[in-house]
């Protein structure tokens, strides 16, 4: 039955089976995401049962159930503090994961990731400049995001220019220049924060280096959601076929009707925009963009039209769980979330390096 005649060429090519598999994973992951959300909102210094969480959210959103069976503090914790935090975590996880997917396709290296390529640190520098020196003040409430975007874009362009100078763009040069630019910018950011003696307490050096979801607010979520979901996830899914072609090579992309230079530039802008708003809201969180694309490819194969949405949901789930760990491991003290993602991500990176070595690449 698996390759019956009625399925014809689709059965032969395995297209139908792959589509079914992707649909199943998307459904399962979406269910997991909802479950994760409810459990994560309930966990923390004050535990709230999942059912109560679901009731409070239902009551706030839809007015169902109508009767209040919970305490006002519970409602405040769920609605004002934890839900925005969990939603921010989902957006950050999804955004960083798909940015990693895009970068891995465009530089054709499985180790590419906004953090390793220095794009996060560019965004941090931009955001810090906005806070300390009022850069981008003309953009009003969006000054921070705009400045972080400008920093991210400048850093990624710088990395690409350095890697390209004096010859062909190779993955090794790209990663090395990314690491160099990244360290330089982090050092600059940290130095500026210390030197200014600024009383900007909430966004400390620690925030920019290791990230935190603690500053999540409802009013900032809309912009982030629009850029991450509407802009990045949707865009990258739509251009999935072009990403496939670009991931094979510039020559191949060109012969399949994709202009590689222009497409790569467009991707850099989209990635920088996403990383810019995410870093300005949650600091710099590493390893998500590196790890999640690999997991997604394991689940549904390589075509980007499938990898992008799966990576987005997977990234969202993983980052929220990382944040739950950050909140409960040493409760009531909160660990910066970057420590958790690094602890989980670094062994993964080692496995990846081992496998690269084994395959002789």
């Amino acid at each position, binding site marked *: 039955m698996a390759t019956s005649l009625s399925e*014809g*060429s*689709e059965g*032969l*090519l*395995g*297209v139908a089976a792959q589509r079914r598999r992707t649909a199943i994973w998307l459904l399962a992951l979406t269910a997991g995401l909802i479950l994760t959300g409810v459990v994560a909102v309930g966990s923390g210094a004050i535990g709230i049962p999942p059912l109560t969480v679901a009731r409070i959210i239902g009551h706030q959103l839809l007015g169902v159930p109508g009767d209040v069976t919970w305490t006002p503090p519970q409602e405040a914790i769920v609605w004002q503090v934890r839900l925005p935090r969990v939603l921010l975590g989902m957006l950050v996880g999804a955004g960083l994961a798909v940015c990693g997917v895009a970068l891995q396709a465009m530089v*054709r290296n499985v180790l590419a990731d906004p953090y390793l390529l220095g794009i996060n640190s560019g965004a941090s520098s931009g955001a810090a400049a906005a806070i300390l020196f009022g850069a981008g003040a003309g953009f009003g409430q969006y000054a921070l995001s705009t400045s972080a975007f400008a920093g991210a874009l400048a850093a990624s362009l710088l990395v690409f220019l350095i890697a390209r100078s004096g010859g062909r763009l190779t993955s090794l040069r790209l990663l090395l220049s990314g690491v160099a630019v990244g360290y330089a910018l982090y050092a600059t950011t940290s130095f500026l924060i210390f030197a200014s003696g600024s009383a900007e307490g909430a966004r400390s050096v620690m925030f920019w280096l290791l990230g935190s979801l603690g500053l999540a607010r409802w009013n900032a979520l809309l912009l982030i959601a629009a850029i991450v979901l509407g802009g990045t996830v949707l865009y990258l899914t*739509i*251009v999935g*076929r*072009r990403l*496939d*072609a670009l*991931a*094979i*090579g510039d*020559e*191949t992309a*060109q*012969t*399949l*009707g*994709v*202009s590689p230079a222009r497409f790569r530039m467009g991707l850099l802008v989209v990635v920088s925009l996403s990383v810019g708003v995410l870093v300005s809201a949650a600091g710099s969180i590493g390893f998500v963009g590196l790890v999640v694309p690999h997991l997604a*490819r394991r689940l549904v*194969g*390589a*075509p980007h*039209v499938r990898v992008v949405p799966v990576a987005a949901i997977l990234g969202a789930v993983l980052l929220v769980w990382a944040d739950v760990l950050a909140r409960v491991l040493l409760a009531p003290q909160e660990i910066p979330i970057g420590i958790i993602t690094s602890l989980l991500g670094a062994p993964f990176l080692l496995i990846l390096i081992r496998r690269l070595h084994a395959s002789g*690449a």
Partner: protein
Amino acid sequence: MIEATGVSWRYGTNPVIDGVSVTARPGRVLGLIGPNGSGKTTLLRLLYGALRSGAGQVLVDGDNLGTLAPREAARRLAVVVQETGGETALTVAELVLLGRGPHLSTFQRTGKADHEIAARCLTRVGAAHLATRAFARLSGGERQRVLIARALAQQATHLLLDEPTNHLDIRYQHEILQLVRNLGTCSIVVLHDLNLAARYCDDLVLLGQEGVVTAGTVDEVLEPAVLEPVYGINIQRLDLDGAIHLLFQPIEPGVA
């Protein structure tokens, strides 16, 4: 029909291709031959627009290649490049389906017709049994056949191939070129092997260090007197049953 007039390319200050003109006629196979470093691949890349010549122009069915949108160019020219894409994690079927990209709108996913075309193209190159395998795990010869299947799936009006017989067993060298020949589309093939060129091309362009040495039909170009100075080897030509065969003998040191 592809008509290139006066195209040039230089790496640094060193001109590789200087004011070259070639014409590929409809329904015929044009071979680009010449020794290493004569610019065969560079010329081919100029012909499909990966390199843009400052001077001269390339016309594809009368339209300037430089002004065609990338997708439209991809519907007219299918190219098998030497870039292998060996690290991709795509399956064979997924890779071949990429050839349908230029025919699909941005929001359209591949449909039944596309899958049938891809399956047919894989069958044509004898690779249907590989469809669900990972491309990266294939042998060099299998990869080459799959890449040709992708080019066929593009259903372009012209087919350009850069040394398509590299890495292929002798049997597949002939099968692939036979296939190209039987397509009946205007094709341009870069070839190292002059005997393959003799058998499967209609027209040849012979490139030397100074550009085009000669162009014409296979019979005209594959003359020992023309080839010997370009390749630096003694050549004997046999015409057996209407087919040209070339035999090679190194020039004795000191004799030449």
